[in-house]
């Protein structure tokens, strides 16, 4: 079996980050359901930035 360690590590970190963001976002929407649109915008942005790390490693790192 062959592969790249850096992609695995980046995916590991990004998965944790996405999980944390999602957990906190649903936490906040549970406390304050009216804020769901704003929270969704923020969390989608943060998730996008977190998962971008995986794409950088996929495409840019040797």
């Amino acid at each position, binding site marked *: 079996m*062959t*592969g*790249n360690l850096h*992609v695995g590590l980046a995916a590991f970190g990004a998965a944790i980050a996405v999980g944390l963001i999602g957990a906190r976002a649903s936490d906040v929407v549970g406390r304050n359901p009216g804020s769901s*649109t*704003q929270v969704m*915008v923020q969390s*989608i*942005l943060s*998730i*996008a930035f977190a*998962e*971008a790390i*995986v*794409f*950088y490693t*996929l*495409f840019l790192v*040797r």
Partner: protein
Amino acid sequence: MTGCSHAVSGSRVLSTISESNGLASFTQRDISGMEHALPQHAVEIARPFGFPITNSMLVTWIVAACLLVFAQTATRQMQQVPTGAQNLLEWLVEGLYRFLETLLGRHLVDRTFWYFASVFIFILTANWFGLIPGVGSIGWGHEVGGHFVVDRPLLRGANADVNLTLAMALVFFVCWIVWAVGENGVGGFFAELFAPKGESKGVMRLLLVVVFFAAGCLELISIFFRPVSLSFRLYGNIFAGETMLDTMARMPYIGWLVQVPFYFLELLVGLVQAMVFTLLTAVFTLLICQPHHEKGTTT
């Protein structure tokens, strides 16, 4: 024609990237060997008059044509109380407008709505078009070990080709500069990037000038990296989704069943990625065009 020249030059960029990439060579080896894997780049299917046409370009044109025809037929006979296609289109456009208005504010959304709405609708349609059965499975191939393997599919998800996503990201980059200079003026544009914010005096002021200039230089790097990350994010998600569906379908005996939940996941990913691209470009625009004159409207 400009879009096509983007696509051609982008294809060269991708080939240099995949040549220098361990992952790509790994995939290439798999194709030549016994395992079959989805190629990372779109495959050329025709070359009329020496102009290469890839399967992703074909899907791009089909999607664009479908959208044009739909918009034309939906608005041919406009009614006061819309029904059917006109209702769907109005719901989509109005929903997008309200959503972007809460994010960007009235003034900015009037100026930039055409880009964000078109990009959202186009990306969403292209992503979902790529999920229609037959896309990626009909094409030219050859017999391998008793069963037929398609290695040049006629159609391929439009965003599973980095040329299209890069072209959209570069168009946004140019629009971003135009909007930023239009909102702030040339001097204001550079002031927004490099000049210190807030009130301060004396030595503190001097220190802050240095700090904000350094921060502006960092900001500049991140700005120039935006087209790369925007295009790779969309391409990576869609290409990864297609690879996953491909792998699931190849599972022996139960391939037809295990890919069903992933099709639903891909429907969701297609929507989320269209939203992420639109949202990120909208937020980048908002960051540089902060409305100083109308306070409290961008909640």
